[in-house]
């Protein structure tokens, strides 16, 4: 499979407010190591200002050959996201926040701007470690339209009092658990489905009340649930029809 990572540590030096997130860079580099070990091929591994807001927007930026998020099969974003200060409403938007040297604006409204797997886009798995742009209360409204061939997405739901902490371990352990290691590590550290892996890795270093969320779609309810529970990054399943969405979450 082809994967990309985008890690944003520097917000303040590039004039984007803050705070900075020093562990995003070790996080994406560790993910790259695990995925390299699993035999996957890196498409782009940009960091800091080289990660652009336009990489996540369906205005052509997401298929930009230098690093769009819809080019690879798998994309891990580590940086800031949006978090409501209190339990939100079903219509509250979710955001990814970059600090790019191009491709502004840096704030990406996922529900209105991101479409993955459409046209010549290939993305199957979108991993967002940005807390909290998979807000459970608005998940169906914000994320249904995003799935245009995308198989699964992972992220967090929380608020400013129940947030994810800046840690390298979530992305790294997600990489370890999903990549499909070479034999015999493949069964000594068994490969997990994306949903199960994120339930374990996504709850590392998050505050009480924050939830790791994994979302899949399918042609039928059964198909969506099966993908949520069982789909691995190496399954090579066909693009799903987004008639149903199934998600699960585990709260710290």
């Amino acid at each position, binding site marked *: 499979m082809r994967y990309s990572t985008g890690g944003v540590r520097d917000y303040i030096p590039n004039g984007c*407010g*803050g*705070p*900075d*997130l*020093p*562990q995003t*860079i070790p996080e994406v*580099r560790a993910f790259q*190591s695990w995925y390299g070990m699993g035999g996957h091929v890196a498409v782009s591994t*940009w960091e800091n200002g*080289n990660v652009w807001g336009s990489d996540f927007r369906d205005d*052509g*930026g997401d*298929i930009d050959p*230098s690093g769009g998020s*819809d080019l690879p099969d798998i994309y891990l974003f580590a940086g*800031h996201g*949006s*978090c*409501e200060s209190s339990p939100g409403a079903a219509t509250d938007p979710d955001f990814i926040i970059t600090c790019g040297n*191009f491709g502004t604006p840096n704030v990406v409204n996922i529900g209105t701007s991101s479409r993955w797997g459409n046209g010549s886009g290939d993305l199957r798995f979108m991993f967002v*470690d940005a807390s909290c742009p998979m807000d459970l209360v608005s*998940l*169906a409204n914000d994320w*249904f339209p995003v799935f245009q061939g995308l198989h699964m997405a992972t992220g*967090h739901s*929380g608020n*400013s009092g129940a*947030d*994810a*902490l*800046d840690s*390298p371990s979530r992305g*790294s*352990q997600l990489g*370890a*658990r999903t990549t499909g290691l070479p034999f*015999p*590590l493949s*069964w*000594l550290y*068994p490969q997990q489905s994306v949903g199960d892996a994120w339930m*374990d890795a996504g709850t*590392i*270093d998050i*505050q009480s009340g924050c939830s790791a969320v994994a979302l899949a779609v399918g042609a039928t*309810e059964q198909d969506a*649930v099966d993908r*949520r*529970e069982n789909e691995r990054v190496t399954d090579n399943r066909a693009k799903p029809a*987004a*008639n*149903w*969405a*199934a*998600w*699960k979450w*585990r*709260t710290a």
Partner: protein
Amino acid sequence: MPEDENSQSDLYRIVSAELIKAASAITGFKLKKPQFASAANVSGIRTVELIFSQRHDSRTIFASDNSYGHGRKAGAWTGSDKTAIAACRAILGAAKIPPKEVAGVEVVSEMGQVSERVSDGEVRTHEPTVLRKLARASRTIEGIPVWHSYVNVGLNFQGQLGWLELHWPEIPLAIVKEGDVLRALVKRGFKAPDLPGARVEAVEAGFIHSPAIGFFMDIGAAIRIIYSGQQPSVGRKPLLYLDRHGNPVTLPRDIEPAKPAAGGRPTPHPPSAG
């Protein structure tokens, strides 16, 4: 992997009996004529359905029944919390986890929900359901948290073990003592450094160690400072881990990180639709 067939065979003779015994004692898994493998820092045994593996450099165990899980043949436990907690406590005992290090065992419910797209502008969302209940043990040493240690236990529909992850590395005495010093510093009002764009939310002493899956087992004591951003709507909070002198502590590793890509990113051509 450098292991050839002969060395695997020798290792099998040396360690397999102990692995089989540990699997039986800790998980109740009876692995008859199991396959054996060893690579890097982990060895294990398996049958068609059951796997038990153990790290060599840490008290870390993985066990699973591949028929376990929501929607799978053996299902997942959604019944009484007491059953899940009792199973977790039994495993803690069998794994010889020091009882005084067990800070607590709680049940974590994994929830699921589905939604149907009725039309382009309308979705119908169904009520959430409990997919499985997991028992999770947390750890302290002399009242000081070990943030990344845990035991997670998942039972199948019948209440038998379906999945276990036990990550409870031994903490050397010198590091325990350092944790005590750091706790005393925090009690005396350890001054957390300023971080641009953020304010201090919490300061606590504790122990850190490498994650469960990985090729390193680094262990240390640190003062952890959680910062919250000045804009509450911006998520992911910075953390600092500091030593007794207020210097950053190197974080525990799991894998050697990849080297960064060289060069800058080219400015793209005008975008096309996609």
